[in-house]
């Protein structure tokens, strides 16, 4: 039914101390941390049916999912790097030019949408990736992101929440569309700064499903790597376009798919990637279809809310602090 990477009883006993804190961690990802699965233990012997964080720290940002990636020799790395050098220098040139020009947007006029991404041709899809549970043999959902016949981005596929009966995962059924991480030239990580805006604007044609919007704000240390802010994208369905405006204040914090007890507003100056996902749980298995014209940002002076979720003072040791 489930599996836990428990390598030895020593770690398991250590683990008990951590149980309180992490009993709710992750359901989307299986347990494969650090890439060293040894045994699959029957459920009866272990307490937890959800995977646990086994160590005090995480080694890989991918949470173990990169274990199948072939290691490339140093030499090859250098050669690959040189190949990309030209492109990166061009990118860098642009950056320098932009800095010298120093032509910022002076006025963010209310009601005007600044388009962040628009999908009209194949090139526009370059910086996006799609993932689904099937990628790691953890389910049967599949999806694609390409240009629709009408000439817009089309995120479509099929979600299936049927769990493979190999005992590794407890739940399945997701498809995900995500932008590549914000980065500068020479593969340096950076963040998008959306501070002047307070609304996310998406022009879309949906199918009546609810999608999950994910805005990642990756932090420096492992505990913040998976910080992600979510909100629901309700689609109307039907042949007409729909413009969804979602205030950033409505986004709530979660990590590895678990809503956090201690919430905080989305740090708009530290956006590392943006994504949309769809899940099949609760009987929503089947095809989905989300056509996106553009994703933009807007400043709406009427919306003054900073964060929509009130926090209560809780008795000590009841929520993870």
């Amino acid at each position, binding site marked *: 039914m489930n599996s836990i990477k428990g390598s030895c009883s020593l770690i398991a006993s250590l683990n008990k101390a951590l149980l309180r804190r992490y009993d709710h961690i992750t359901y989307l990802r299986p347990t494969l941390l650090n890439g060293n699965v040894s045994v699959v233990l029957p459920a009866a012997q272990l*307490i*937890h049916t959800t995977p646990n964080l086994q160590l005090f720290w995480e080694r890989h940002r991918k949470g173990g999912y990169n274990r199948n990636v072939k290691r490339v020799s140093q030499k090859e790395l250098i050669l690959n790097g040189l190949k990309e050098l030209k492109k990166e220098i061009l990118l860098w040139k642009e950056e320098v030019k932009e800095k010298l020009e120093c032509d910022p947007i002076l006025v963010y006029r209310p009601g005007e949408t600044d388009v962040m991404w628009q999908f009209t041709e194949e090139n526009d899809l370059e910086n996006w990736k799609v993932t689904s549970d099937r990628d790691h043999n953890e389910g049967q959902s599949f999806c694609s992101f390409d240009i629709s016949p009408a000439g817009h981005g089309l995120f479509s*596929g099929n979600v299936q929440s049927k769990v493979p009966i190999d005992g590794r995962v407890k739940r399945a059924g997701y498809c995900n569309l995500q932008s590549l991480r914000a980065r500068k030239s020479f593969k340096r990580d950076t963040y998008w700064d959306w501070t002047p805006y307070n609304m996310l604007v998406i022009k879309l044609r949906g*199918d009546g499903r609810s999608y999950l919007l994910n805005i990642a704000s990756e932090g420096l240390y492992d505990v913040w790597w998976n910080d992600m802010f979510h909100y629901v994208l309700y689609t109307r369905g*039907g*042949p007409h376009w729909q413009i969804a405006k979602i205030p950033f204040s409505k986004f709530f914090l979660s990590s590895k798919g678990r809503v956090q007890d201690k919430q905080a507003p989305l740090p708009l100056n530290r956006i590392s990637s943006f994504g949309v996902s769809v899940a099949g749980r609760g009987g929503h298995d089947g095809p989905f279809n989300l056509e996106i014209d553009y994703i933009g940002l807007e400043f709406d002076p009427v919306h003054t809310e900073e964060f929509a979720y009130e926090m209560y003072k809780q008795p000590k040791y009841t929520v993870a602090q």
Partner: protein
Amino acid sequence: MHFLRNQLSKLGRQSLILSERYYPIRYDSNTSTDEKKTDDKNKNFVFEKQLTLQSSFENITEKNRDTYLAMVDVFLDRDVHRRNHVEFIYAALKHMETFGVHRDVEVYKALMNVMPKEKFIPRNMFQAEFMHYPKQQQCIIDLLEQMEDNGVMPDFEMQAILLNTFGRRGHPTIKYMRMMYWMPKFKNQSPWLLPNPVPNDALELAKMAVKRMCTVDLHSNVDVYHTNEVESAIDDTWIVSGMSPEQMQLLAQHSPEKSLRIEGPHLIWLRNQSLNYFVLKGDGKEYPMSTDDDEDMDDVSNLTFNKYGWATSKQKQVDVKRSVHEQRDGVIYAVCATGTSTKDSLLSWIRLLEKNGNPCLGQIPVLFKFRSNVAENLLVTSS
């Protein structure tokens, strides 16, 4: 979430044992009714033989809420110690959907009541800190998570059960608190709120779907037709059609030389139900690129306005406004869902539209542009 605050402060005051007294213990061994006891014998028999509890649920032929609850009662009455209750609950959770009770909060409560009261409540700091009775706690956390997955909101009775079982420091209780914080916040968030659960009747669903799609235009009319209104119809089914006066006007302006097309079937989801719909579309009118403004937008020396009635700028009259139905890939004239989704029923739809205020449809050729349901074909059967 006032209740959170209230409950927590209340908890502080209330002694745990006291709170237990408030709770009516329904499924305890000595409270089960006589009526249920009549068929206890053969059900006990089920448990006696089985080592694994899982198959006992599978063996039930008539799968419904009553038999499910009866199974729970049988387990409770089996012996005083309620051995293997964790395993029982896991097995029961797994079979909820087949019994059709996965959206029933009462059933979840019944399962939760299998756990003995008071025993698992931590009595000191260490017990509270190091997950007292971890297996049991995890089991109920899983139960709550299954509720969450199925969109079932817990209620206050469940809170009482949890408090009596695990106390206010128990992890299931905290999980319950989280659920009660987040679930109501999103319960009514959808701009097109649907009843929960959505009806099973296809016609009702179709009406809902077409109404929902028509919310783009406030003037839209949703009509329910029946194919027997058309003489030549073969199918005997309903048609739910949505069209607004503006669309009718656009259709009247459509040139008869250009054909219209019925596109579909497209899919629309209403919660966990999906439905096929069709769109009557035509080629869009070409709009001239907005004429270069010879009018200076900053020149206020010559402001003109409508002096009679409500003053508005003259500009509005000059500009031709593109309607919402005119999209870049064509003009949407109407949407519909039919009971059979066949070409014949769609043909009846066109005839009915023609009869009901769109005489021009008699002259315009209509093509079918059917889309094979791509997703279905690609669907891989489970290995």
